[in-house]
């Protein structure tokens, strides 16, 4: 069993604070992804869990035991590095067995584990090669294999797929997913790619500037983002934002006067906000439909129409100069230069954020 807890963890390099007190609980067997833009502290956080960075304040708790001062080697975790960090002067077999030898494990047991990992990752034919003689995907497998043989309580992945080409990335994503399913271990995975996060995670932790923005199931983050940053970060193409002001508040929700023109109802509570407060209205591209321009609340001058056959993308600007993207199923007759009206989703698909704090206004059930 491996239950990991971070309690108000902070990290300071010199005078620069890079992690501002993060609380997180990860259950046994969970696949958790730390996602965020570069420089958000996600790798630092992972390295603090691994024991490669010291914790400035706060506690890292593993199975109820505070491990702040326990060296990396004794935490029983295994890590896959972004650059793979395979030992270039050792064969693949030596790379896999190095960690086990350090634990003074019996020869036979080492051989058994290494062979098993090699079979699982299909690298049996490469065992006598050096890392320099392997392709990127093969190195990645060996790096994962080096973690697997340790049979760690928690796997840590630091952007493991960022050096692979797109096709291989998709393939390795599936393999890591399968590996998690088969081993049932806890895995913590750092990436800046929200697609990886959405497809692999049981739960996602979105980080920005050393702060935890939201922690939850992928679809919860997608459907009910806690703030404007998460809303914009998760989902591709990103959520559209239109600025406006609160025009009316009642029990069923609020009415927003958009800068782009028109009024729109959003079923959210507006506790603490007054009429006339600045808000950002958000709606995802796939919830937008083009309609006849006459009578539509918002008009869009189409600057780009992308036809992918199975789906189509419209990009354009509103009268207020805000850009909007729409994803349509199938094919569309709208062309560049057309002006269309926009239907901005069902009420349940609409989001509203406090423009001052960025926090999402809660949806009414």
């Amino acid at each position: 069993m491996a239950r990991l807890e971070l309690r108000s963890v902070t990290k300071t390099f010199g005078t620069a604070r890079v992690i501002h007190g993060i609380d997180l609980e990860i259950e046994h067997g969970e696949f958790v992804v730390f996602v965020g833009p570069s420089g958000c502290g996600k790798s630092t956080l992972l390295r603090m869990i691994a024991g490669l960075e010291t914790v400035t304040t706060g506690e890292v708790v593993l199975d109820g035991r505070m491990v702040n001062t326990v060296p990396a080697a004794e935490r029983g975790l295994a890590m896959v590095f972004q650059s793979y960090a395979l030992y270039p002067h050792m064969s693949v077999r030596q790379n896999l067995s190095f960690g086990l030898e350090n634990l003074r494990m019996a020869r036979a047991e080492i051989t058994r584990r290494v062979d098993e990992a090699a079979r699982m990752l299909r690298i049996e034919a490469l065992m006598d090669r050096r890392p320099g003689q392997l392709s990127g995907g093969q190195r990645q497998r060996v790096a994962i294999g080096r973690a697997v043989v340790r049979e760690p309580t928690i796997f840590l992945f630091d952007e493991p797929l960022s050096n692979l080409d797109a096709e291989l990335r998709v393939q390795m994503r599936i393999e890591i997913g399968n590996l998690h399913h088969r081993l049932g271990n806890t895995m913590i995975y750092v990436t800046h790619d929200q697609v990886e996060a959405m497809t692999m995670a049981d739960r996602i932790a979105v980080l920005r500037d050393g702060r935890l923005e939201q922690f939850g199931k992928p679809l919860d983050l997608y459907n009910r983002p806690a703030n404007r940053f998460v809303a914009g970060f998760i989902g591709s193409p990103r959520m559209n934002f239109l600025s406006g002001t609160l025009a009316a508040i009642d029990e069923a929700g609020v009415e927003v006067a958009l800068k782009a023109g028109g009024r729109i109802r959003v079923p959210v509570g507006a506790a603490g906000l007054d009429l006339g407060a600045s808000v950002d209205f958000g709606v995802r591209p796939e919830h937008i439909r083009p309609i006849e321009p006459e009578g539509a609340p918002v008009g869009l001058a189409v600057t780009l129409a992308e036809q992918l056959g199975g789906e189509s993308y419209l990009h354009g600007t509103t009268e207020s100069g805000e850009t909007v993207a729409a994803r349509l199923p199938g094919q569309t007759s709208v062309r560049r230069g057309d002006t269309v009206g926009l239907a901005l989703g069902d009420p349940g698909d609409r989001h509203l954020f406090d423009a001052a704090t960025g926090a999402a206004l809660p949806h009414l059930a």
Partner: protein
Amino acid sequence: MITATDLTTFLTRRRGRALHWTDVVAHLYLAFGLALVVLPVVWMLVSSVKSQRALVENDPRLLPWEQVTVLGSEGRQLSVFTLVRDDGTRLEVAFLAPRGRNALVVPVAEVGDATRAFEAPRDRLVRKETVAPQIGNYTKPLFGTGDTDRFPFMRFFWNSTFVTTMATLLTLLVNSMAAFALSKYRFRGRDAIVVIIVSTLLIPPTVILVPLFITVQGLGLFNELWGVIIPAIASPTGVFLLRQYMLTIPDELLEAARMDAASEWKIYWRIILPLAAPALAVLAILSVIWRWNDFMWPLIVLTKSEVYTLQLGLSTFKGEIADNLDHLLAMTVLTLLPVTLVFVFLQKHITAGIANTGLK
């Protein structure tokens, strides 16, 4: 069939580019540099098989030409000359004695018969010489044949080898440990320590000669080989060289090893040292050359001939009255051989070491 034209084409082939005048200058410069380095060694090799006479006379010929002699009637070695007569015929004669502008000679075929001696004009006599490498230059001092004192080459060789091997091994060990700490650990004052170590290069060795001698004597290492070895171990050049190389080894490798439960010693021994092999090879070559050729410090510490290194041994050929040039040169050639072989051998390893560094 390879013709001369083919060979010329092959030797002067370039990558489709005419020879620029800077190329000519560069080649001339390189040829000059090569000559500067190689010629003294060639001179030494060639001279090491010449006789003492040729060396003292500064005989400028490349090959070891020696006077042909024949055994005379009274057990004397007589020089052989070729007499060119007026009619152009030639006769080999042995020189017996000078007679003014003439010389008393006897035909070589009848050298035992004094009655056959006759006078011949000196300007008709041509010295007869043959190429005779003086192997004795090597064998006499090595095996003590003839009137020469035996040169205890093997003992000096052993002393030199012991000093060089131990000093080099310890240099690699100590300097790589220092370099590891200075390149891979973060601690207060690290950069200051590097600067201090490197700045000791500015201190001339002669300045610390006396304090070093007092230290060595205080430790009871006077006239001990360890007295030569220990002061030479720590080298700022070595620390700097290894540190700069180790900085290029990615920290992630060390972190991976730490995750793999490797101790710091194991990281040093199993990860850092193998990956620093090319730099270690360079330092090994430097250290071998330094220690093998070192003269000054051993001369001060070692005064008994039992502990002499080769370089000290060689200096014994230079006497107060006369230099034993022929033996000195021959023994110098033998002294040079091991260090040359080490260089040739390690050179191959450097190339292999760099090629094996499969770092991304």
